C-alpha cells in the first residue's frame, strides 16, 4: 500500500488571487487547409481580445501582457520544433518571455496552471495562455500511431498503436466490477454529440441513438468509434490577470483555482494505495469498498484526477462538489474516461459513478450538467488547446454568454455552417461555479480547475 508524505499533501496557496477574464477559440475541424497553424492561433487570440466585452482595446491589452504560456501536445504532429517562438512572434508579443508546456492530453490544463502561477507569483499581472494542435498533416492511422507513442514505447505501444486499446481494458474491468453496461457508456456519447449540435465550432456534432452508438464500428472492444474523440486542428486562448488588472479589464471576471496530479504512464504499474479523501468524504467511508477492490485505483479510477481534485477543492474552499458546482467540463476522450472521472472528482462516491448519468444529474437541467460544450466527443480534441478551450466554455457559461458564443449567426458563418433550426440554448441559469478536468494518457497528468464568478 502506497501512502503519501505529509508535505506532499500540502494544499497550494496562491500568493496573489488569479482571475480569468477572456477566452477565444477557432472552429474545430478534422482537416483545416485554409489556415496555417499560426493563423489559427491568431484567430483564437483575436477572438479573445475582441469578443469578451473587455474595457481596453485589443492593442491596449496587447500592450498590457507580460508573459505567455503555450500548450502543444506533440512535435510529431506539428513537425516543427520551437513552434512557440513562431506563434509568439506571429502574435506580435516579442520580447515578452514565453514557455511551451507539454503534458499530453492535459497540456491545456497544465498551461493554464503555469499561467496562473505566473500571476499568483507576481511575475505577471496579465498573462496569455494559448494552445493548439494541427493533427491533419498525417492520415488518421498515422495519427493513431503518433498518439500511441504517448503509451510506453517499450512495453505498450506495439500492443495496439491506438489509444483506444489502452482505455478499453479499463472499460472491461470497470464493467465487470461496477456493472457498467454498454448502454450507459453510449448515453454519454449520445448526450455530448447532441450538445455539440448547438456549438458552431463542433467537429463531430450529431443526433445519435444508443443503438447507433453501439452498432458503430468497433475500435477496441468495447469502445466503438462513436465513443471515441477524433483528431482535430484548432486553437484556443484565455487571458489571466491579477485582481487589479482583472477588474480594470472586465466587469465580469471569474476567479481561478487549479491544481494537478500525476500517475504512472503505464496503468499496469499502479500499485494499491490510500484513497485521498475529498472534503465531503468521511474517514472509513471506503473500508468496505476497499475490501472488494483492494487494488484502488487499479484500472478503474485515476489517482491523478483524485489528487488534483483533493487539492483544488481545498484551494477553492469547495465542500460538496455536486451541490456547489453548477456545471463541469470533463475529459471525455472516450466514454469510459468520462465515467471513471465521476468518482475521482466526487460527483459520486467511488462505485456509484453510473448513478451520475442514470439520475439525470449530468444533463442540461440536471443538478450538475457535464460537457454542455459538446466535449471532446462532440466538439474537439486539438490536444494542446483542449484544456484551454474547456475553460473558455466554462467562462462563457459563468458570464451567461453561452447564447452569444453559440447562438449568434456570425459564429455559424465563421465556421462555414448554417445554424440548425433545432438550435436551443444550453445556458445554465445563473451559474456561480464551474469545474473542468484536463487529462493526459491513461491518467498520467490531470489538472482540476475551478472557476468562480467574481462580480
Amino acid at each position, binding site marked *: 500500500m502506497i501512502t503519501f508524505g505529509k508535505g506532499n499533501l500540502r494544499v497550494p496557496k496562491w500568493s496573489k488571487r488569479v482571475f480569468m477574464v477572456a477566452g477565444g477559440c477557432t472552429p474545430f475541424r478534422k482537416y483545416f487547409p485554409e489556415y496555417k497553424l499560426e493563423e489559427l492561433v491568431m484567430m483564437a487570440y483575436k477572438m479573445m481580445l475582441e469578443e469578451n466585452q473587455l474595457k481596453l482595446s485589443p492593442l491596449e491589452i496587447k500592450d498590457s501582457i507580460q508573459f505567455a504560456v503555450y500548450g502543444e501536445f506533440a512535435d510529431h504532429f506539428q513537425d516543427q520544433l520551437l513552434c512557440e517562438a513562431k506563434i509568439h512572434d506571429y502574435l506580435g508579443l516579442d520580447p515578452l518571455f514565453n514557455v511551451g508546456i507539454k503534458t499530453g492530453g492535459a497540456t491545456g490544463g497544465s498551461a493554464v496552471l503555469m499561467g496562473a502561477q505566473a500571476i499568483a507569483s507576481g511575475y505577471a499581472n496579465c498573462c496569455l495562455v494559448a494552445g493548439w494542435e494541427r493533427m491533419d*498533416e498525417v492520415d488518421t492511422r498515422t495519427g493513431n500511431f503518433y498518439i500511441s507513442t504517448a503509451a510506453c514505447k517499450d*512495453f505498450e505501444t506495439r*500492443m495496439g498503436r491506438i489509444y483506444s*486499446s489502452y482505455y478499453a*481494458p479499463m472499460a472491461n474491468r470497470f464493467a465487470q466490477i461496477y456493472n457498467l453496461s454498454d448502454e450507459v457508456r453510449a448515453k454519454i456519447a449520445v448526450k455530448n454529440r447532441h450538445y455539440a449540435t448547438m456549438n458552431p465550432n463542433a467537429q463531430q456534432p450529431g443526433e445519435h441513438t444508443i443503438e447507433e452508438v453501439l452498432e458503430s464500428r468497433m475500435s477496441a472492444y468495447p469502445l466503438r468509434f462513436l465513443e471515441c474523440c477524433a483528431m482535430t486542428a484548432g486553437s484556443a486562448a484565455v487571458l489571466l490577470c491579477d485582481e487589479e488588472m482583472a477588474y480594470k479589464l472586465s466587469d465580469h471576471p471569474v476567479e481561478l483555482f487549479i491544481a494537478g496530479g500525476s500517475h504512472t504512464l503505464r496503468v*499496469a504499474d499502479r500499485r494499491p494505495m490510500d484513497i485521498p479523501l475529498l472534503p465531503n468524504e468521511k474517514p472509513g467511508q471506503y473500508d468496505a469498498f476497499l475490501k472488494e477492490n483492494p487494488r484502488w485505483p487499479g*484500472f478503474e479510477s485515476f489517482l491523478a484526477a483524485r489528487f488534483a481534485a483533493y487539492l483544488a477543492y481545498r484551494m477553492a474552499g469547495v465542500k460538496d462538489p455536486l451541490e456547489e458546482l453548477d456545471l463541469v467540463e470533463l475529459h471525455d476522450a472516450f466514454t469510459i474516461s468520462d465515467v471513471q472521472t465521476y468518482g475521482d472528482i466526487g460527483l459520486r462516491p467511488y462505485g456509484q459513478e453510473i448513478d451520475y448519468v442514470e439520475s439525470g444529474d449530468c444533463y442540461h437541467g440536471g443538478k450538475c450538467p457535464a460537457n454542455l460544450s459538446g466535449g471532446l466527443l462532440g466538439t474537439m480534441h486539438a490536444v494542446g488547446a483542449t484544456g484551454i478551450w474547456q475553460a473558455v466554455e466554462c467562462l462563457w457559461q459563468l458570464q451567461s454568454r453561452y447564447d452569444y458564443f453559440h447562438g449568434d449567426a456570425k459564429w455559424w458563418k465563421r465556421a462555414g455552417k448554417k445554424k440548425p433550426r433545432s438550435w436551443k440554448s444550453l445556458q445554465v441559469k445563473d451559474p456561480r461555479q464551474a469545474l473542468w478536468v484536463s487529462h493526459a494518457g491513461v491518467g498520467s497528468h490531470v489538472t482540476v480547475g475551478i472557476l468562480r464568478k467574481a462580480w
Partner: protein
Amino acid sequence: MAKKAYEKAIKTRYTGKPLKLYDEKKAWVVRWPRALEHHHTYGLLTPFFKGLTQGRLMATRCVNPKCPQQSTWLPPRADCPDCYERMKWVRVPAKGKIYTYTLVDYAGVGIEMKTPYWQIDVEIKGVDTIFKGFLAEGKPYIGMPVKAVFRTKNPTHTILDVWWTPDE
C-alpha cells in the same frame, strides 16, 4: 594549393525531390515525406528483452531491507522509485491470470499483429504490477489462467517476443 570551399565562388543546383501537391482547392497543401530511423537503447532493461529470447520472464525486485515497499516490477525498472536503490533481477513464473483485456479491432499504422486480436493484461503471482501482452489463441475472460510463450527463434528484439496462451 587548392582553394578551400569558402574561398571559392560557387554555383548551386537543386538536388532535392520536388514536393507533389496533395490539395490545391482552398490552399496549397503539399505532400511532405518523412522517413526516419532511431537508435533506441533498452539500457539497464536489456536483460529483460534478452531474457525473452531465452524463454525467461525477468522482473526487478527491490531487496533493500529499509525500503517501505520492496515491490517486484514487471515491466521491470532498474531503480526503485520508493527508496532509489538499484533493484535485483528475479525470474518470475511464466504464467498468470487475466486482469482485463480488449479486442483490438482498428489499430494504428505499423501494427505488427493481424487484427483483430486480443490484448490482455496479466496478473502474475509475486509481481506487484500488471503486465500487458496479447493472447495468441482463445477468447479471454477476467480471471482466465494463461501461460507465456517466448519467441526464442528469429526474435523481434521487442516486447512482442512474449505472448500468452490459455492454461486451463
